[in-house]
């Protein structure tokens, strides 16, 4: 049957001035398969919508072309309007005659607008409806890592009614902050207590993730506990695997040299031999990622000053204070009498009669300065925690240049991974100020609740679809998919062919372009639809 295409041209409340609408209407009506053309000036408002809806029914239209604003702004509105008129929302082709035609040019632009309408009509001709489908999902969430961020995630998830399994590699919960609460100011003991009394959180200690298969709503995770391995199904996964510290390679820890962590233990110890009178921190981080090191240094310098009343000197290249509360922490430290010395060249450190000598050039004063101290606190490197590399290749997600998990998009989706349903929170995605950890947890939890909360996800069925007859199982799509949304399925004659999981697919079309057998059809952006638009530029 020939398609009956309805074209609606809207002047967006009179904001499109350089198109001759009556001429456009006349010429657009002559395009093959166009059943009728209607002009409007308020298509996205209620009145315009009602008018469109009645025209669609009266003229028995089965494809719609709307020439108006950018699809980015109003496509969803028009799709809904189509649906209320009894048409599938996907049978719509939008032509952007406002932003990319009228507003981008001066003078009469009717001819270009018409050609764009022709492109839209050509695309509309081969549009197929896409049905929506509800897929029920598993509502359990796996949280990997029982440190501060992992425990907070589990608690917040359980408050929203999502059952959580909390996995911890060590034998007890708490992570790094269990013993070092003072270092970063994050309290864990109350969290541990809350988790113990929560029946929606199941804690598995001394356990590790061995394998992750499947997709959002249906991840099968193999968990090893001691020698025993078993599989469980989860709807989503949160990784909160934290970081590790490694010492400065040139300085060996000893009685006079320790790390910020070591100092925190000393500060907590009740029976310390004698209090160090002079403490020097050497803090060399100068890159963009030294927030955690700054927090640790500032916190421990301040605590040492307050608890031991020692003289505290911080030799630093840069103190990173762009996190929440860091600027005030820095001020507080200065006001308490902590002295900051800024250097450019690495300070010389030598041992002298049981004391440590630091020699540096103060760039603010322009002179060399030397300090003999009882205790030297050397900075540590922050590294991704052990197993990050294995896990990332297991999950097929990226890591950044230092090996931390890479967020999907630093600005837009900071806690999401490129795989739907897998999130990273806290310091496993690079070191961050404690304030950001809380933000991370909240955004991951909200996203998970949005995904799994209703117990089902609405997807567009077969938007990207493999034709089993054409598929030769070359696995090109399986390897290329950036979202791990391709799997294999067995068809009638026992052959295995690729299958695209609607749940995990992000509709990018990379597989469609790559498939050597052209077996993957991407409705809305199929070869036929793209080529039809290209052909329209040839006719004028």
């Amino acid at each position, binding site marked *: 049957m020939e398609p009956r295409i309805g074209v609606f041209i809207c002047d967006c409340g009179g904001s499109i001035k350089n198109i001759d609408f009556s001429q456009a209407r006349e010429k657009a009506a002559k395009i093959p398969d166009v059943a009728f053309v209607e002009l409007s000036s308020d298509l996205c408002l209620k009145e315009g919508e009602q008018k469109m809806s009645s025209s669609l029914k009266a003229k028995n239209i089965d494809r719609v072309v709307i020439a108006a604003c*950018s*699809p*980015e702004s109003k496509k969803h509105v028009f799709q809904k309007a189509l649906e209320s008129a009894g048409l599938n929302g996907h049978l719509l082709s939008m032509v*952007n005659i*406002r*932003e*990319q*035609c*009228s*507003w*981008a*040019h*001066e003078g009469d*632009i009717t001819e*270009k607008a018409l*050609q*764009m309408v022709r*492109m839209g009509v050509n695309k509309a001709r081969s549009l197929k409806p896409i049905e929506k489908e509800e897929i029920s999902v598993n509502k359990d969430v796996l949280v990997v890592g029982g440190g501060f961020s992992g425990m907070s995630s589990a608690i917040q998830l359980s408050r929203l009614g999502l059952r959580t399994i909390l996995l911890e590699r060590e034998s007890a919960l708490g992570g790094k902050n269990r013993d070092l609460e003072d270092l970063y100011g994050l309290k864990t003991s109350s969290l541990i207590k809350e988790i113990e009394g929560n029946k929606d959180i199941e804690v598995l200690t001394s356990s590790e993730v061995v394998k992750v298969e499947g997709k959002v709503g249906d991840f099968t995770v193999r968990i090893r506990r001691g020698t025993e391995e078993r599989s469980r199904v989860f709807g989503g996964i949160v990784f909160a695997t934290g970081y590790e510290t490694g010492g400065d390679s040139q300085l060996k820890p000893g009685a006079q040299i320790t790390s910020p962590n070591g100092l925190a233990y000393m500060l907590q110890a009740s029976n310390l031999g004698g209090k160090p009178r002079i403490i020097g921190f050497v803090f060399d981080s100068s890159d963009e990622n030294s927030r955690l090191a700054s927090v640790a240094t500032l916190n421990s310098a301040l605590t040492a000053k307050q608890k031991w009343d020692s003289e505290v000197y911080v030799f630093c290249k840069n103190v990173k204070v762009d996190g929440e509360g860091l600027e005030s922490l820095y001020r507080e430290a200065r006001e308490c009498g902590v002295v900051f010395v800024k250097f450019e060249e690495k300070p010389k450190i030598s041992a002298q009669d049981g004391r440590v000598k630091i020699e540096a050039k103060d760039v603010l004063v322009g002179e060399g300065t030397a300090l003999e101290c009882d205790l030297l606190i050397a900075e540590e490197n922050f590294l991704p925690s052990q197993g990050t590399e294995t896990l990332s290749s297991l999950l097929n997600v*990226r890591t950044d240049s230092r090996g931390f998990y890479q967020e999907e*998009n630093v600005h837009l989706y900071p806690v999401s991974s*490129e795989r739907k349903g897998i999130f990273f929170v806290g310091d496993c995605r690079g070191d961050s100020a404690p304030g950001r950890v809380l933000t991370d947890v909240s955004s991951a939890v909200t996203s998970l609740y949005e995904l799994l909360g209703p117990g089902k996800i609405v997807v567009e069925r077969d938007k990207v679809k493999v034709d089993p007859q054409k598929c030769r199982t070359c696995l090109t799509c399986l390897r*290329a998919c*950036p*979202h791990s949304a391709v799997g294999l399925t067995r068809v009638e004659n026992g052959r295995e062919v690729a299958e695209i999981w609607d749940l995990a697919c*992000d*509709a*990018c*079309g*990379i597989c*469609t*372009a*790559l498939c050597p057998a052209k077996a993957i059809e*991407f409705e809305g*952006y199929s*070869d036929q639809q*793209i*080529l039809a*638009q*290209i*052909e329209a*530029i*040839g006719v004028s």
Partner: protein
Amino acid sequence: MAFCCEHSAYSAADLAGRLALHCPENLRVIPVPCAGRVDTLHILKAFENGAAAVLVLGCEEGACHHLTGNTRAKERAKHAEVLLKEIGGNGRYVAMSNLSPNAPHKFVTIVDEMNERIKKSGEVR
């Protein structure tokens, strides 16, 4: 003819319109969900239908919404360029550029530059 990634170049083009930055009138845009969707075939078909230049516009390198789409598109554009030369497409150009969605000025610059190139080669009517 420009294939514009809906995550970057298409938004940039919209912004350019909103800021009334003027584009050449002979520009035609085909939106794609990712630059990686663009096939060599699409580029060559555009030439067959009379395009003087084809631009593939995707996200900035390292910031592709679909991770590898823009690098794949770059390779494909290069491949199309080789094919174009083989079949004697003198004076016609294909290029891949990267830009972010909030870069309307860059969008206009890219399109203008290409337009200058095809004007010089006499391919523009």
